[in-house]
């Protein structure tokens, strides 16, 4: 039972980290209709800048702020020079152009920081454990990630659902051109949306970095998972991104814990671990296939047409 609670919390923590990446991707892919392979690079920018700033100042809050802001600014710059030229192009052009960005970003961080930047250490007040369940001490930092994820996503939801900017974003999903005739500076709006998505990815990169080795390409894995999330959740649906992220975070974590244990029954220990781990890494794709068979547009995707 303790193991289950612990792994469930780990799964939620992975899910919320994933959600911060995939919510941005949902805005950019689902709403702006841009396939941005470089979204994972923004995660990486956040992680690297935070590692650098954290290494220099030793202050987690400053590192978090710097990493998030850096990703948002880089995102804004990228939108301004490249992405806005891609809105009316087809997805293949977008994939090619943003894949080039990924390669450039991976080289650039190596040129700037070398292969091993300083690390972000968790802030002192979170560097302890909390007893969340009888006999189960759990790292406070991981709980804080869950809380930060909830806060970030709630703010994003309020922005999209309640504010005028959110109304324009939703109006632009279907009537991008026409929106200008209603006095909205659509280009600026889209730069802002892109920056928000980038900032969220950067934020996720910072908070996740204590669990990762911060190296070139560190965001790529999250990018792939995020695309799976938005396919499962339904393209363009923030609600879908929430359920998709949490579902995949939990399934992935549970599978990695329990499948090796399951194979233990009839294989020797080390083989069970290897087989279990490789089957587990396929688990989210099994979920994706099942969801797409049952609901071809994802859990909360709008029907075609």
């Amino acid at each position: 039972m303790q193991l289950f609670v612990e792994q469930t919390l780990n799964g939620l923590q992975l899910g919320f980290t994933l959600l911060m990446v995939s919510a941005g991707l949902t805005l950019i892919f689902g709403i702006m209709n841009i396939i941005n392979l470089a979204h994972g690079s923004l995660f990486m920018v956040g992680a690297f800048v935070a590692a650098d700033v954290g290494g220099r100042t030793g202050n987690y809050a400053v590192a978090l702020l710097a990493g998030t802001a850096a990703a948002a600014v880089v995102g804004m710059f990228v939108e301004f020079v490249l992405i806005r030229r891609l809105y009316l192009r087809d997805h293949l052009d977008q994939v090619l152009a943003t894949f080039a960005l990924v390669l450039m970003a991976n080289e650039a961080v190596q040129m700037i920081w070398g292969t091993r930047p300083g690390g972000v250490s968790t802030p002192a007040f979170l560097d302890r454990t909390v007893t969340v369940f009888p006999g189960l001490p759990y790292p406070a930092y991981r709980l804080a990630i869950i809380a930060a994820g909830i806060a970030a996503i709630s703010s994003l939801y309020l922005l999209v659902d309640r504010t005028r900017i959110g109304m324009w974003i939703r109006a632009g999903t279907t009537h991008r051109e026409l929106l200008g005739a209603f006095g909205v500076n659509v280009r600026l709006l889209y730069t802002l949306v892109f920056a928000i998505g980038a900032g969220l990815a950067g934020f996720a990169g910072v908070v996740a970095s204590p669990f990762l080795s911060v190296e070139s390409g560190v965001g790529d894995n999250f990018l792939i998972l995020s695309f799976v999330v938005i396919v499962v959740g339904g393209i363009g649906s923030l609600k879908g991104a929430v359920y998709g992220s949490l579902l995949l975070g939990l399934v992935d974590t549970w599978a990695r814990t329990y499948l090796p244990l399951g194979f233990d029954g009839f294989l020797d220990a080390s083989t069970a671990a290897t087989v279990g781990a490789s089957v587990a890494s396929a688990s989210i794709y099994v979920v994706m296939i099942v969801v797409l068979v049952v609901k071809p547009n994802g859990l909360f995707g709008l029907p075609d047409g």
Partner: protein
Amino acid sequence: MTSLAGGYGPTQVLYDVSVEVGEGEIVGLLGRNGMGKTTTISTMFGLLAPSSGSISFDGAQIAGHRPFQISRRGLSLVPEGRQVFPLLTVQQNLEATVRASVSGDRRWTVGTVFELFPQLADRRQNLGVHLSGGEQQMLAIGRALVMNPRLLVLDEATEGLAPTVRAAIFAVLRILKEQGQSILIVDAYLQKLLTLTDRNVVIEKGRTVWSGTTEDLIASPGVADRYLGVGV
């Protein structure tokens, strides 16, 4: 708008369109299907780039400006096909565009639009996509009104509506006329339209071929016969 030319990329549609709307005037933009009325309006709002000619509004050149800049000078559009924002509620469709006029006047608000169209008030929490055609049309008009425009442009605002709904829309336009709202209007129901307009411009194949007062148009039935294929 003087000697405007333009179209869609390489496809030229407009060759020589001139339209003028004076303060407080209602001008009808007439012409058969496919003659370039919607194209003229899209060009006016900066949604299409003119290839030559000039568009001036309130003394300023606006040709080549971006749509939001043009709109903020006090133009608002009820587009062909209504085009309400489907993912926003009725209320949000209005809140998204509400704005004081260039001179700071706020005659039209979400509240006064609901007074004008009580039927919309009943459906304020419904998504745009779930409205009937008539309700969508009312919403499209309301959405343009809350921008408190100096010039309101309506493109086929009664197309495909039941006669009673069409009559209701014309009644609203009459109220706007009494309030002195400047309007440029395209509408297929010529008889009704002419009870509203002060002047009319007829275009054919992207050229202005006639313009004059409504009395002149009625007094010269040959014009309507020839360019509109109907009598008046």
